């Protein structure tokens, strides 16, 4: 055994098995035996043992909870960076599988404009946000749709009169937002963290899909319509003590929730409503870049500034159906050329380009 020829304290200190014995007591009997057989090494070993005990061992600088919170913050900063800096190559997990369309039709948005406090359910719902992180509340009192970017890469187009609240950082297990009024949701895919949308009466859970909700405060019914994938809908608070009913909807199905009776009607098949953004398939075949940009402008209610002269003769074929706006913009910019970048300032997209390939 090489150990028998040790001549310095350091050799013992650097011996992983020796250190393991001192720190954890592993193989105690074996070491006692070895020391008895090698009496001439006892002094060195004892000295090394004292030294190891005096140096101590690594103490964790953070608890598991603190670590997870830091992880959460790091993801958030990564997203910020990715959106601000440049069109990075698209990461797989960032790709979007779910696009959710939420609606509160009718007079609902008039009501929310009145700022009547009793209607402000959006902020009074329990939230599983991280302790210490405050919710962000947004009220679109303008006449144009307003684009909201969430930290997880999801985007929301909040229609005029719509109110939205969401945590600055989502909780580790789920992403929860509260809506009153009308909004179009594009949810980034993350199976570990379901995306939940609370409206007054029901909660809608995204399992990778696109769907639409009509949930006006002063309409008798709430309607949920699924375009693709699967959606779970349930009551927030069942009036009687029965467990909340969970309705599973598949593509082209819709269900109505009758508020006065506190129950769901039977799901039925339905045709795709002729709403602009649902109607658009964002499939472009050899289309001028300008056409693609103006399609995105009208669909999302944003303005896109781009160098018209430089991009005049650029044509693209691309399919952007299931991507959120930011992903669509990234794909378009990357497809034009590596010298094409974009950034967002509120509802305003600024594209800079040195031309196409």
């Amino acid at each position, binding site marked *: 055994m090489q150990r028998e020829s040790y001549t310095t304290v350091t050799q013992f200190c650097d011996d992983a098995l020796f250190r393991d014995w001192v720190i954890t007591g592993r193989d105690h009997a074996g070491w006692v035996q070895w020391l008895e057989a090698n009496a001439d090494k006892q002094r060195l070993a*004892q000295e090394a043992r004292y030294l190891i005990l005096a140096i101590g061992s690594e103490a964790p600088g953070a608890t598991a909870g603190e670590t997870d919170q830091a992880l959460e913050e790091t993801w958030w900063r990564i997203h910020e960076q990715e959106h601000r800096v440049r069109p990075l190559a698209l990461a797989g997990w960032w790709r979007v599988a779910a696009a959710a369309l939420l609606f509160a039709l009718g007079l609902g948005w008039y009501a929310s404009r009145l700022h009547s406090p009793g209607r402000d359910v959006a902020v009074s719902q329990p939230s599983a946000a991280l302790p210490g992180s405050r919710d962000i509340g947004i009220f679109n009192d303008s006449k144009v749709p307003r684009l909201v970017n969430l930290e997880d890469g999801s985007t929301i187009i909040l229609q005029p009169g719509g109110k939205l609240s969401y945590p600055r950082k989502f909780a580790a297990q789920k992403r929860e937002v509260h809506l009153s009024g009308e909004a179009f949701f594009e949810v980034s895919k993350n199976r570990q963290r379901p995306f939940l949308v609370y409206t007054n009466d029901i909660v809608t859970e995204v399992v990778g899909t696109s769907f639409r909700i009509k949930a006006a405060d002063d309409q008798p019914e709430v309607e949920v319509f699924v375009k693709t994938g699967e959606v779970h809908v349930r009551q927030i608070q069942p009036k009687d003590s029965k467990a909340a009913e969970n309705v599973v909807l598949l593509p082209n199905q819709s269900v109505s929730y009758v508020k006065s009776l506190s129950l769901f009607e039977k799901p039925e098949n339905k045709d795709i409503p002729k709403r602009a953004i649902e109607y658009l398939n964002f499939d472009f075949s050899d289309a001028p870049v300008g056409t693609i940009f103006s399609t995105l402008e009208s669909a999302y209610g944003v303005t896109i500034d781009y160098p018209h002269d430089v991009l005049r003769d650029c044509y693209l074929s691309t399919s952007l159906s299931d991507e959120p706006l930011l992903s669509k913009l990234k794909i378009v910019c990357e497809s034009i050329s590596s010298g094409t970048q974009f950034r967002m300032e509120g509802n305003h997209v600024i594209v800079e380009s040195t031309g196409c390939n």
Partner: protein
Amino acid sequence: MSDSTLPDSQLWCLIKDDDQAAYTTLFRKYYPALLGYGKSLTDHHGLAGDCVQETFMEIWLYRRNLAVPDSVRAYLLAGVRRRIARRLERDRIFRHSRDIGEGEFSFQFTPLDEMISDEETRRQVQQLNTLLNQLPARQREALYLRYHQQLDIDEIARLMQINPQSASNLLHRGIKHIREVWVGEMHTLALLLCVYF
């Protein structure tokens, strides 16, 4: 799916393939150690946390271009150290002031009390510990990196931006100094050894 039993190099490869779970595993594995190290380099604990996060951010943002390091632990520790040094340097320039001792290794060793069962050992270890904590900062840092972070001499040298011989010297000089001051009492103890083991 990745789990915490995978070796670092494999986790790193998964991260290069956009594996979020592998990134989470790596983060959970090293964040506490890195934060501990960061805090021993600056009293601004917020700054330490920031620099650890930035080190991890860089991994994700540049994952496609990053080579798999020989030692992920050494790579991360070096990243945190470099960032903190840079930030402190910048602060110094902007504030036209100098925080004495900032950026210098301030970690204090704590004895492993739970593995000590008798008073004699406790007394010896306590004395050694006091001597350890009086060593110059760079010697303490080298010992910390060697025995708390399990880096080898070459890794310590790269991290502290010195040559391997100097790193080795830092370690040995520290231990040698302690033994010179302390060794007097060892002779009487040698005979009693087996009792304590």
